[in-house]
């Protein structure tokens, strides 16, 4: 570990230059010693690097290769390799339904991310302002919602939204909205996806809330005091004190949420299998339908690759920020 730091420093900075002029004999001795020494860290790192390559690199390569193959049940069973070039991509992209599904997935992701980040921010601010006892209660319920398995949460929400026996419709009727008696929430893709966004947000908010609350705790109290003395109202002190401290954390949360929600499958499939009429089908559902249901694994792999491309475009800005900020920080 120390050896790596040394080489890194000597490579980047000019000061070590005198070392090389410090006399021929000692340098050579150091050089001879360091051949083995220089190799050591790489040897120590090798298992981890190879492990990561095998665990991450191979599946990615495998998906890429599968996406240019015709791989149905028969080919899979016979171990036959049939290259079809970009046929799978052409078939997926030429289907007008694909673009509709892509757009729907983007809107769904936007809905999820917006509600999770905004909801998380509000809950984090709330946590800061309520008395300790209430805060503990709030945190406890957040952790419980977070800990709930996805399928269990989805099933519970299906019950809540059940047209005849769901507590939501019954409550609405109780408050005088008689139109909701027996109202079905799953008759259109839009309302089905809205219900799914609610489930996802319900389970996603705890993570962002806790992360942002941690960020809020890092803001020294005297900054608020100073702002107060300067006559700032609560909105101004939020903008001038809280926001700058929260912004990096908010960016991380947004980035993570985009990654998680874009490829979300479990809740979407469990809720209505992408229905009605395919109205809540997202890209990950399309992938499942092509691969697991229809057993066209090549097509499904092509959808996966296209998903990676879309995701890359979506997050390119953040990746750029990430790379740049590292340069600045170092």
């Amino acid at each position, binding site marked *: 570990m120390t050896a790596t730091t040394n080489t890194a420093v000597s490579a980047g900075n000019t000061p070590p230059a005198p070392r090389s002029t410090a006399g021929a004999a000692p340098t050579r001795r150091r050089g001879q010693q360091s051949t083995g020494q220089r190799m050591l860290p790489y040897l120590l790192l090798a298992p981890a690097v190879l492990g990561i390559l095998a665990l991450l690199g191979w599946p990615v390569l495998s998906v890429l290769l599968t996406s240019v193959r015709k791989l149905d049940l028969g080919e899979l069973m016979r171990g036959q390799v049939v290259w079809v070039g970009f046929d799978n991509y052409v078939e997926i992209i030429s289907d007008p339904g694909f673009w509709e599904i892509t757009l729907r997935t983007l809107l769904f992701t936007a809905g999820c991310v917006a509600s999770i980040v905004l909801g998380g921010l509000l809950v984090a601010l709330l946590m800061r302002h309520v008395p300790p006892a209430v805060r503990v209660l709030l945190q406890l319920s957040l952790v419980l919602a977070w800990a709930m398995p996805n399928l269990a949460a989805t099933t519970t929400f299906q019950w809540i939204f059940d047209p005849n026996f769901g507590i939501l419709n019954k409550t609405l009727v109780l408050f005088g909205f008689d139109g909701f008696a027996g109202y*079905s929430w799953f008759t259109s893709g839009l309302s089905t996806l809205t219900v799914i966004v609610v489930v996802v947000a319900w389970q996603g908010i705890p993570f962002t809330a806790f992360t942002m609350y941690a960020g809020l705790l890092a803001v020294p109290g005297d900054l608020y005091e100073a702002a107060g003395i300067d006559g700032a109202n609560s909105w101004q002190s939020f903008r001038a004190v809280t926001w700058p401290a929260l912004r990096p954390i908010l960016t991380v949360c947004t980035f993570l949420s985009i990654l998680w929600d874009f490829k979300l499958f479990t809740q979407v499939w469990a809720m209505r299998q992408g229905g009605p009429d395919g109205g809540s089908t997202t890209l990950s559902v399309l992938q*499942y339908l092509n691969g697991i249901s229809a*057993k066209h694994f090549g097509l499904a792999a092509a959808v996966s690759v296209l998903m990676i491309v879309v995701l890359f475009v979506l997050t390119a800005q953040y990746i750029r920020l990430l790379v740049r900020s590292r340069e600045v920080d170092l």
Partner: protein
Amino acid sequence: MALAATAAATLGVAACGTSGGGGNSAEGGTLTVWLMDGSASEEMISALNQEFEAAHPGVKVKYEVQAWNGIQDKLTTSLTSDNPPDIIELGNTQNPQFSSQDTLTDLTDSAKDFNQDKWIPGLAEAGKWNGKQYGIPFYAANRVVLYRTDLFQAAGITATPTSNAEWLDAIAKLKAANAADPDFQPLYLPGQYWYALTSFIWDQGGDLATGSGGSYTGALDTPQAQAGVEFYKQLVEASGTTAPKDNDEAHPQQADVYAAGKVGMWIGMPGELATAVKTDPSLKEKTSAFPIPSKDAGKTAPVFLGGSNLAIPASAAHVDAAKDWLKLLTSDKYQTQLAKGGFVPGADKDTTALAGDPVSAAMAKATAGGKATPVTPAWASIEAGQNPLKDMLTAVLTGAKTVPQATKDANDALTKALAK
């Protein structure tokens, strides 16, 4: 679902591991047979295995019961493994997907050994692809209308309905007789029970799709198919059933709903009745059945032929032994035993063994006119993916779409899915 798929895949791998171990220790002398949960009885299969082992010294039968849930994924993983089972049971609607991909052994030449002339046509059709026979009929089970004899009597219904008009009349009478109980449903009919819908569509002279071989196009927008959907809606409205309009017969399990005692009639299979009887044993005495009525008095509606075929994976290690096992199973002796277990046997036209029980008798009566879903590999992916028939029913029953609109949309979706 994803969880289920993963679990199934893991199970598949585990099962392969064990069957591999068994194969090694007996030096290829183990015949692995996979049958599904709820098919032939334990006693029947063990008797058959004993007879088989006696005739094949040195060969041991390894019999494993599989669960229907996630079976497609499990079959996919096991058929592509190095140690696939030697005999598998396939749902008749899943059969074409496996045959069209050359994953099964061609049994055309041995068909006559398996009692071919007594096969149920609907099942044999499902096992056939491109003129070759890959699947052998195992058993059929179809839906009947199950009803409570005591409630029928109390409502003054003396004869079981033999036409759609009489059926609706029976619903009205049951409703009137039980008006005091707000939870009572004369007919329990969930919104997405597409197996029941197929009966009504066929009865009106319509069909799900037309075509043959690999190419089918939807036929749901025909006036006949629309009439079938209309009748479904009529039944739901007449009954005022509180069954979910946006879910199928398995969510919740309709047998459990029936077991709660607030249902007069439901469309189900004898196996489902057995589940209900487990919860409330008194239902056995109080339940009888009649075939799904037709629009024409005295006839019965064609039923959706559910059932299973048997097949030998193309990669099976013991094809000859597997064929001998199938030959034994399709012999009259075991087919009769299958019928005694309450199934319509796949390779025996003699169903007298079923006549003793009113429910089985009603089922056997309808089997002959049974029809199946289009014989195309795409159908299995419709069932395992998004089924347009379900969306269509929900849209009609919730009033989201008119019948012509819903049938047209579903037809477009079905045609598109069948073309894949």
